[in-house]
């Protein structure tokens, strides 16, 4: 048993369908402390949103099968009954969604929707909720909050809507904030503002943040730890610095190769990961990444196509684990991948 604030153990989320079981999350484990940020990275359909929604119990009432443990402050959220889980939502764990326009009800004012989050967990008057709403809108940087509180979502710009969503999520000072691609739907200039705001608020409220993204730039900026997910499994997990500098899993290499670098050499290639994400209904045998992996031939025998690799400590150490059969991934990365994606970096060292 760990003493982390949030501790997810062997989380499994399956969706039975008429075609079979969709294995959206398989045996996911991670820890997160207050004041720290975990970045969960992966392609669409890798299970990052599904596993995080499970923390809020958003799969309850559907046919999803969720098992494992989600310990928040020592309490297993999966053992709570529906009413206890409902009280926990928004109060202990809050969530910010990707598209703030569709995440807000078009027919109610921003203030009404934000105040609602406060009223549901606190026995206060509507007036008090409104005062708190204005205070929070001010805190997240909405100008003239006492007037904008009566606006409708469509009268807000995209960035302001996301600020309002953040205000809504922080109304009850939750210990854990899950941000599901909070900047994906926003302009690049606004993205940075929102990320800054999240960091400021994290320092102020000392909350734990899970930030779900496919943008490694966001991870580098925000996250203390990174969890790379592929086909419902964690394939690499460790401190952000470790993973960005010494990635040991070919999928992570692929993600890094796909990121454009504005300051870097224009000769550096953008190398997309070939192929498509696997079906979660029928994932490939062995390592789920093997059909798209360029380094399969470096593994002796047919290990990659038959045996699911375990999460094992990385060769470079540092509390960093990866799921790969390669015997010397650190060397492969240094000699084959790094020169391709950052030639200037390699030359600088030489």
């Amino acid at each position, binding site marked *: 048993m760990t003493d982390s604030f949030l501790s997810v153990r062997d989380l499994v989320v399956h969706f039975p369908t008429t075609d079979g079981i969709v294995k959206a999350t398989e045996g996911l484990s991670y820890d997160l402390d207050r004041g720290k940020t975990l970045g969960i990275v992966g392609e669409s359909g890798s299970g990052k949103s599904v596993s995080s929604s499970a923390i*809020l119990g958003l799969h309850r*009432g559907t046919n999803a099968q969720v098992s494992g443990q989600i310990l928040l402050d020592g309490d297993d959220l999966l053992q709570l009954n529906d009413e206890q889980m*409902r009280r926990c939502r*928004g109060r202990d764990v809050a969530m910010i969604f990707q*598209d703030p326009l569709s995440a807000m*009800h078009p*027919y109610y004012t921003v203030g009404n929707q934000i105040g*609602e*989050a406060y009223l549901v967990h606190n026995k206060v008057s509507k007036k008090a909720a409104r005062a708190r709403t204005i205070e929070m809108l001010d805190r997240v940087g909405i100008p003239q909050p006492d007037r904008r509180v009566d606006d409708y979502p469509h009268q807000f710009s995209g960035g302001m809507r996301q600020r309002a969503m953040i205000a*809504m999520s922080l109304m009850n000072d939750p210990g854990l904030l899950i941000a599901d691609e909070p900047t994906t739907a926003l302009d690049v200039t606004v993205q940075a503002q929102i990320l800054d705001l999240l960091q400021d608020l994290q320092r102020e409220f000392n909350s734990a943040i899970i930030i779900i993204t496919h943008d490694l730039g966001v991870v580098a900026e925000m996250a203390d730890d990174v969890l790379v997910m592929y086909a419902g499994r964690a394939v690499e997990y460790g401190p952000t610095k470790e993973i960005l500098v010494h990635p040991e899993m070919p999928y992570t290499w692929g993600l890094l190769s796909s990121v454009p670098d504005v300051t870097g050499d224009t000769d550096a290639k953008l190398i997309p990961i070939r192929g498509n994400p696997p079906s979660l209904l029928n994932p490939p045998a062995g390592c789920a990444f093997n059909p798209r992996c360029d380094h399969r031939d470096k593994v002796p025998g047919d290990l990659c196509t038959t045996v699911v690799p375990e999460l094992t400590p990385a060769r470079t150490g540092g509390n960093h684990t990866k799921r790969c059969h390669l015997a010397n991934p650190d060397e492969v990365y240094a000699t084959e991948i790094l020169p391709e994606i950052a030639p200037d970096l390699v030359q600088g060292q030489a």
Partner: protein
Amino acid sequence: MLAYIVRRLFAGGILLVAMSMITFILFFAIPSDPAQFACGKNCSLAQRAQVRKGLGYDKPVAVQWENFAVGVFKGRDYPDDKSLAKSAPQLIAHCAAPCLGYSRVNLQTVTQEFKQRIPVSASLALAAFLMWIIGGIGLGALAAVWKGTIIDRGVVGISLVFYAFPTFFVGLFLLKYLAIKWQVFPVPSYISIADGGLWNWFVNLILPALTLALFYMAGYVRMTRAFVLESMSEDYLRTAKAKGLAPRKILYKHTMRAALTPLVTMAGLDLAGLLGGAVITESVFNYNGLGKLVVDSVITFDLPTVVGLVLLLGAFVIVANIIVDILYALIDPRVRVG
């Protein structure tokens, strides 16, 4: 908003003028002679010409329309004959403004006819409207919440049955069993509140209104179910759930508000259509409403009544449209101007 309403009302007025013109033109394009109808089978040419003059059909269509239009605002006499007014004033029928014409078939002004018929049709339409809105939306939401269960299938299946059966069958069925055989209700006939009091008016209204409501309800059950399900998959419902709202609050406040919006349009137009009379239901239950008047006036070639009806029913739809648009702006803040 006020400017918008005024603009819409003005446009509606112009539409009504155009409708009255088209009705006149269409009526005279028919290759049969209204004077021949009024005169009867054994009618000499001279007699027919006299009748035509008496009815005012000898004048050009444009003049007839003009007389009609003036009559709407000023009232007019039938027949409009100054010498006859002097010699035999008892033969002249005065039609006070707003005069929509004088029916030679029913021997009263169209306005009087409407005054008798509108309360009948309006009572029926409003009672049916209440029943199907409450029943349709309630059952539709129930089916959506219990989607895929026996409740859902039962509600949708039964409503489909009532949708499939023709109104006259359901009407006669209810009449035969509930009124005649088991005598749960009286055999309905329209009793105004003034004549029989609120209770008699209401009890007599139940069966015909139910007949209409069962038919309309089926559509509303299916629509409500679809809209609620669609609204349930919206992102903002996930937000509401993530806030920790109770399922009941999510359903009533967040889901239903969004699901009901498109139903407002449907309901407004359906009600407007029904205010113009329910031909079959009125016939089955022997209600002398606008629906029966429509059929009778067309069969007896009663031009003034037909023109009046076209304008009245048109006005219902135009006004309903304007009301629906205003309601829409009240419901959906995105529609509001400014």
